[in-house]
């Protein structure tokens, strides 16, 4: 006799994502949303998303420079975020460059790793972000600066893994 225990597992990547500008309204991060179908409703959810972010700056035109401070949080929903949108407690965190001195630029990949223990009754999960103020925005997924040039835009593909974790 054999058994097959099918636990939910999802992996995806968005190729050549468009630039996202994060401002003061919470915005879904490209490639961060997943429809989750747990085998056991009491299971926890493993969530790991990776993207690229930078200060709001174009080194070819530094007159646009802003020192970025971004708020991130996970959300869950039972209707694909149409009307049911629930913030996940404990997922809130910040990413920033230096916000004291001017002209401190930061360019880095970002990994958001979470375990969500209470997902019963929900079907979707996503990561959203907003900036602290209209003068502390950030760019996601693309950079103007690469290989010594400030005009050769490059992108970073997003990646997402979501997995069921049975207790």
């Amino acid at each position, binding site marked *: 006799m054999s058994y097959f225990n099918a636990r939910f597992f999802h992996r995806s990547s968005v190729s050549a994502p468009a630039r996202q500008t994060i401002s003061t309204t919470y915005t879904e991060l490209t490639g961060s949303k997943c429809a989750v179908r747990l085998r056991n409703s009491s299971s926890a959810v493993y969530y790991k998303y990776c993207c690229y972010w930078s200060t709001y700056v174009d080194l070819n035109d530094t007159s646009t420079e802003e020192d970025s401070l971004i*708020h991130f949080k996970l959300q869950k929903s039972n209707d694909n975020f149409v009307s049911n949108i629930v913030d996940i407690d404990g997922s809130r965190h910040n990413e920033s460059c230096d916000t*004291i001195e001017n002209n401190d630029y930061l360019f880095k990949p970002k990994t958001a790793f979470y375990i969500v223990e209470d997902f019963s009754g929900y079907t979707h999960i996503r990561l959203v972000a907003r900036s602290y103020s209209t003068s502390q925005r950030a760019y996601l997924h693309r950079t103007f600066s690469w290989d010594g040039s400030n005009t050769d835009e490059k992108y970073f593909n997003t990646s997402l893994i979501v997995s069921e974790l049975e207790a």
Partner: protein
Amino acid sequence: MSYSLSSNFLKPVYQVTSHTTAQSSSASAGVLTTIDGTALSYTPASGATSVVYEVSFSMQKINDRYFQSFRLEYSTNGGVSYTEFNARYQRSVGPSGATGQAYRELRNFRWVLPAWSGSRDLRVVVGSYATGREAEYHGLDKWDGASAGSPTTVLTDTCLMVYSI
């Protein structure tokens, strides 16, 4: 694209730690502090060659620039004493040496370790390079476009998972 697999991780053990207060690393060089939520006991699966230890927690500056060094430790005597796994797993994090640095981040570590026999108590400890280079963990000084208060009421859970491969 989604898949259903018979086993996604081998012998996973996970924990989520909710915090009620922020935690600070020592202001003195050479003094190591266990980061709340990183301690866990684990016995690798039979036949495993490696163990993955993955953790995330938030951190931010306290006064100025931080310079923090992390290392992964284990105990085989119930936490009476701890040993560093290996110096190659040490990680140092810090912005530039200039003053007036106010970085914030969700720090994510993923260590792939040689498997062992029996149970070990694991933990992540952190130290500061020098006085004035300490950092604050779990608490956020700003949220939703405003100050989060002092002491803050906005905190980030520490998420930890260990599994075998």
